[in-house]
């Protein structure tokens, strides 16, 4: 390891910069790696994530595409099947609906259908989540559609450092990976090591230690959960915030370790409650870790509605700090045997 100054080790990057750095490093490392997406080249992407990459790596490798999601993902897949790793951007994950055949019927299944004789090193960057009055077609959190599709890995990083390390692993992974990036995280800052590092898929992270209740959150709900934990600490409730970081593979052991400490589980996500990833998480906890639980499991999720436009409606639909805190307090009050209402 090269000696680095403390300042360099602690350099703070935004989530968008960290993603860009991961892309650049991997493009440097593998001269065949291609980026594809709408407006990712000259304009640097709608959220600026790919800024400068066209200038640095050229138009042969940073490919601005027509607005053709199905063809873009299929093209990325076809190249990947021939051994050319590709990273495709879906400008808003809502638009993945136009590429569902290529994601769900083709990419997810190619290896399986061919009896393990093909591999598709493909990453699809999915810009996701609600970011302030973007309404029903630009705000969705669709990760559970894809966690329900065997053959896809699903990454949901919440910090700049995690985003960088996980994206680098995703790019080197021989299977298709959907990499969800939350719009409201792009400008968030965090320490990112200057040295090269990878974060393996399938390892959750304790974001804040606690001993009363495990609060599972991912993407933009992580900073929100951390604020709630801070607030509840003043009430004497010790909240452990645990970020799975990747939903597939899912770190069962990490969840178990946290529940061994706390015995209580609250799950928060932005996606609608019905069939959200929280349902799977709750089922894993109930089936596999029931004996560790001292209280019923609680989910605090998006409402089962499309995303409304008005800011006050949007705020109502997405779990806010008050609702998350209420969920935690409820779990602290209840014990197994008592019932828990929906939220």
């Amino acid at each position, binding site marked *: 390891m090269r000696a680095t100054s403390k300042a360099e080790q602690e350099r703070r990057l935004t989530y968008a910069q960290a993603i860009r750095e991961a892309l650049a490093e991997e493009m440097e490392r593998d001269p065949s790696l291609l980026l594809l997406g709408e407006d990712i080249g000259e304009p640097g992407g709608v959220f600026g994530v790919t800024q400068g990459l066209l200038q640095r790596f050229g138009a042969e490798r940073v490919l601005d595409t027509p607005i053709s999601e199905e063809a873009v993902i299929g093209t990325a897949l076809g*190249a990947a*099947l021939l051994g050319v790793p590709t990273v495709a951007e879906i400008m808003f994950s809502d638009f993945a609906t136009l590429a569902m055949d290529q994601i769900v*019927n083709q990419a997810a299944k190619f290896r399986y259908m061919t009896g*393990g004789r093909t591999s598709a090193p493909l990453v699809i960057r999915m810009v996701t989540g609600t970011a302030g009055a973007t309404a029903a077609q630009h705000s969705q959190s669709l990760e559970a559609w894809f966690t329900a599709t065997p053959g896809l890995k699903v990454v949901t990083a919440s910090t700049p450092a995690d985003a960088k390390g996980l994206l680098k692993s995703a790019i080197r992974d021989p299977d298709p990976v959907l990499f969800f990036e939350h719009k409201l995280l792009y400008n968030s800052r965090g320490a990112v090591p200057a040295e090269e590092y990878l974060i393996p898929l399938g390892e959750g992270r304790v974001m804040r230690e606690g001993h009363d209740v495990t609060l599972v959150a991912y993407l933009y709900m992580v900073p929100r959960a951390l604020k709630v934990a801070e607030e509840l600490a003043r009430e004497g409730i010790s909240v452990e915030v645990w970020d799975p970081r990747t939903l597939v593979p899912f770190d069962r052991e990490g969840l178990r370790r946290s529940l061994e400490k706390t015995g209580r589980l609250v799950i928060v996500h932005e996606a609608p409650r019905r069939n959200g990833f929280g349902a799977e998480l709750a089922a894993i906890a109930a089936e596999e870790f029931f004996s560790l639980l001292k209280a019923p499991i609680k989910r605090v999720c998006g409402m089962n509605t499309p995303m409304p436009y008005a800011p006050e409606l949007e705020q109502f639909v997405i779990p806010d700090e008050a609702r998350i805190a209420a969920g935690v307090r409820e779990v602290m009050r209840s014990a197994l045997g008592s019932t828990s209402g929906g939220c």
Partner: protein
Amino acid sequence: MQSLAGYSPAFLKELYRKMVLIRRFEERAAELRSLGYIPGFLHPYIGQEAVAVGACAALGSHDYITSTHRGHGHILARGGDPRYMYAELFARRDGYNRAKGGSLHIANIELGIIGANGIVGGGIPIAVGAGLALKQARQLGSRHPDDPRARRADGVAVTFFGDGASNQGAFHESLNLAALWRLPVIFICENNLYGEFTPQHKHQTIRDIATRASSYAVPGLIADGNDVLDVYRVVSKAAEDARKGRGPTLVECKTYRQRGHYEGDMGQYRPAEEVAFWLEADPIKNYRRLLLSGKLCSEDELKALDQAVEQELEEAIAFAKASPHPAPEEALEDVFVESHGGRALL
């Protein structure tokens, strides 16, 4: 019909043998299905053999194809081995896909077969991606000559699809993208006049699908899809353009599906005169006659080729029958690459 001048007898005979191989492969598959050996769908390629054989004759070892639900012909023409194909249809362990794919998904990247496809139009964008990888191989070749991917620098990707598929967004998006990036992709539309049970005039307003090329400013060529040499000639031209960096071509091959849409469909919705017309235009029968009339080979020689095909298929079927069934737990393999979590991630 084409003139035989300029072709070697060996080449001409190989075209014949391949077409007969496909015809008899399909006829035997239908029999085997009725005997219970094949659990899944079969969409016979009978009647369209000249398209797959003529097109694949224009391809080399660094070229790739994507195919369709009616894919056996393309796969055989591209060098697929009937043993592993029947084993796959029988859902046996020695199948190309280890019994996980079946007729709709046979693939073998080493042979340049990126796969049949169960989704109408699904293979088209994937071929564009193969074209992108091939274009990159040219660029890679100059900068990183050691990269093994640079070897396929003169490759082309061919995507086969039907008249029905030409109404899919995937077709239009893909042709636009390949045209824009001048990718070495050949779009081969097999217009067999039906999409499932629907005749062409009830699913689109045009007769010549090749005209759709003009929307994307690429050449749109029409070949007689029942004439193997015409298909070869037209696809060779498209391949030459693609290899020289001139971008994609849309080739429409006019042909006919002699059977129903799938094995078991009697195809009674087709007018009798239409069927009779196209049976008369049978690609193998006519090509055989041409070879004989051109005195390129004797009746005995062709019979010997027929016989060799029968023998090869007989052996392939015996191989498939002897191949073991998969063990149920094999269902848990191959979702993810084993070294990256594999079965543990399920």
